[in-house]
């Protein structure tokens, strides 16, 4: 249903959303470009990894994180609930189209819109990073080689948050009711577990691996790491990976054998595989399917 697709796409690409995407791209690009302008380069791979880890963090937290999650939450939560609240859905569903067709068109319009916004932010980030950092060809191709990973991760985030947003939007009668749980999930994904982890780290409390089951930050960061693995993986020294580990839980410190390395504090950063990545992907894939399927079932029988 082209007309609903186009309308939803237009609504997704409103000026504030475009401005936020541009700002996110500029912010990430400037942050990466400024730090990229080194005078002393110890080694190519060291420099490359340092740049990449910063870039991964910018994408994970900002572009495919706060910005994408907020935008997809805002758009998907209003997809049906917004029209119910404003009273426009009643006219929409009394035109000769099936409700499923209407929902499919809206979902496709929303996904296309967020894909465009995400691509816009990513492109701007790359352009500013490359030109501001005055990076040479090898570095540029190294940084760009992770673009497919970012897009894939963005797609997974979009599908998960949008499926939940659409489901809540089909249930709720007001957009805000559908939006709040999504924002809560975003905070749980990108904020609270990190704070909790840092506090526990300082208190020297050992975290139980069972917490991985409910640690959304760990789930999403593991998916992000898996996407990056498809494009060459995330590498770096223990120091480079440490900050990433603290913020994402995708790596963990493993103490080395003191007989091999002298000194008590020697540790290496290892991938945190508390949960199998395929298991995480399967569960989230299943949730996405259930959410979308439930949305269609609900909308077909919803009193408007």
């Amino acid at each position, binding site marked *: 249903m*082209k007309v609903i697709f186009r309308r939803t796409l237009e609504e997704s690409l409103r000026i504030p959303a475009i401005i936020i995407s541009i700002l996110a791209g500029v912010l990430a690009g400037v942050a990466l470009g400024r730090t990229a302008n080194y005078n002393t380069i110890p080694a190519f791979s060291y420099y490359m990894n340092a740049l990449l880890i910063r870039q991964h963090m910018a994408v994970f937290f900002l572009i495919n994180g706060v910005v994408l999650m907020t935008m997809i939450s805002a758009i998907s939560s209003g997809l049906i609930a917004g029209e119910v609240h404003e*009273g*426009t859905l*009643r006219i*929409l*569903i009394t035109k*000769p189209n099936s409700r499923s067709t209407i929902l499919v068109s809206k979902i496709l319009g929303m996904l296309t819109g967020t894909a465009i916004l995400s691509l816009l932010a990513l492109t701007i980030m790359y352009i500013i990073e490359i030109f501001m950092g005055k990076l040479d060809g090898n570095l540029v191709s190294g940084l760009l080689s992770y673009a497919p990973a970012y897009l894939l991760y963005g797609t997974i985030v979009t599908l998960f948050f949008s499926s939940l947003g659409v489901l809540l939007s089909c249930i709720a009668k007001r957009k805000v009711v559908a939006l709040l749980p999504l924002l809560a999930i975003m905070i749980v994904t990108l904020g609270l577990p990190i704070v909790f982890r840092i506090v526990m780290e300082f208190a020297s409390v050992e975290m139980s691996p069972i917490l991985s089951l409910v640690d959304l930050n760990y789930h999403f960061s593991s998916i992000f790491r898996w996407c990056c693995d498809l494009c060459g993986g995330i590498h770096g020294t223990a120091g480079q990976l440490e900050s990433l580990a603290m913020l994402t839980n995708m790596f963990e410190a493993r103490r080395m054998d003191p007989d091999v390395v002298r000194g008590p504090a020697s540790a290496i950063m290892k991938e945190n595989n508390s949960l199998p990545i395929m298991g995480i992907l399967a569960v989230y894939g299943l949730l996405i399917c259930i959410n979308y399927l439930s949305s269609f079932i609900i909308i077909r029988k919803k009193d408007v």
Partner: protein
Amino acid sequence: MSEYCIELKNVTKKFGKFTAVDDVSIRLEPGKVYGFVGPNGAGKSTTMAIIMGALFPTKGTGRVFNHPLATPGALKELGYSPEFTSFYSDMSCVEYLYYMATLAGLSSDEAIKRTNELLDQFDLKQHANRKVAKFSTGMKKKVSLAQSMIHRPKVLLLDEPTANLDPTSRQEILDTVRKMVEEENLTVLISSHVLTELETIINHVIMIDHGHIILDAPIHEAQEKFKQGILLVDTSNNDLVLEKLANRYEYRIEEEDIRFNTIEIEQLKKDIVGIVYNENLTLNMLKEEVLSLDSLYKQIMEGETKNEGNIQKNA
């Protein structure tokens, strides 16, 4: 193939414990204008929303030109103007109608053509590029009516099309509906509280109260059934007429006319004609009062209330 364009069978709609529509069965024949009347909360809008597929019945079924309710086949035949139409705040009148036309399955060219036709028909051309959300209530009603007609449906469902309008706008809307009905041979189900206006366009009345249909009949049949036998008489010598009939019939004087009230209306007519003939009087007026929809409504609703009172007393 059903001869009815809309058929509801034993439809019930409950919202939690509240029953909005209770075992309603109605049939709408093509080409007729149905007035759907009843007090607030009687179930008119709910019934219309069920026909339009916006609400699903708790029990019962229905068909629109043999298509089950809420299917694209049924919706293609229906045009709907709700009591409160909401518009997209960012759309102008022309954009809104074009959007509705394309939603209804018209191609881009057809949508442009139909939008222009309706802008002309509803006298909205000069406001075409203004935001609909900022229109006056009367103009919004017009746009709502126009969108209901956009795909040339065979049946129109108009929920309170004249509500909250000034008399001029009400007349304008009703004239437009009348014109549409005549030109396009539509079947219309129209609900309204302004019964005096409604009776000028309908030829069938459906009354609903507390979710029950309490009257479903052609308007003239309903008037015949519920008329109270009121005859207005004016002759050259009303005093003489009264002298001869006052002891047999109930009457009162109304602006120098005699207003008889009797169930033996045919006998009264014969008696008056007899007096006029025998006494060589001039008969200025002999008119049987037609029951207005408003009076009909009051009579039936009062009857309902009395019945309810009796039921409560008996209980």
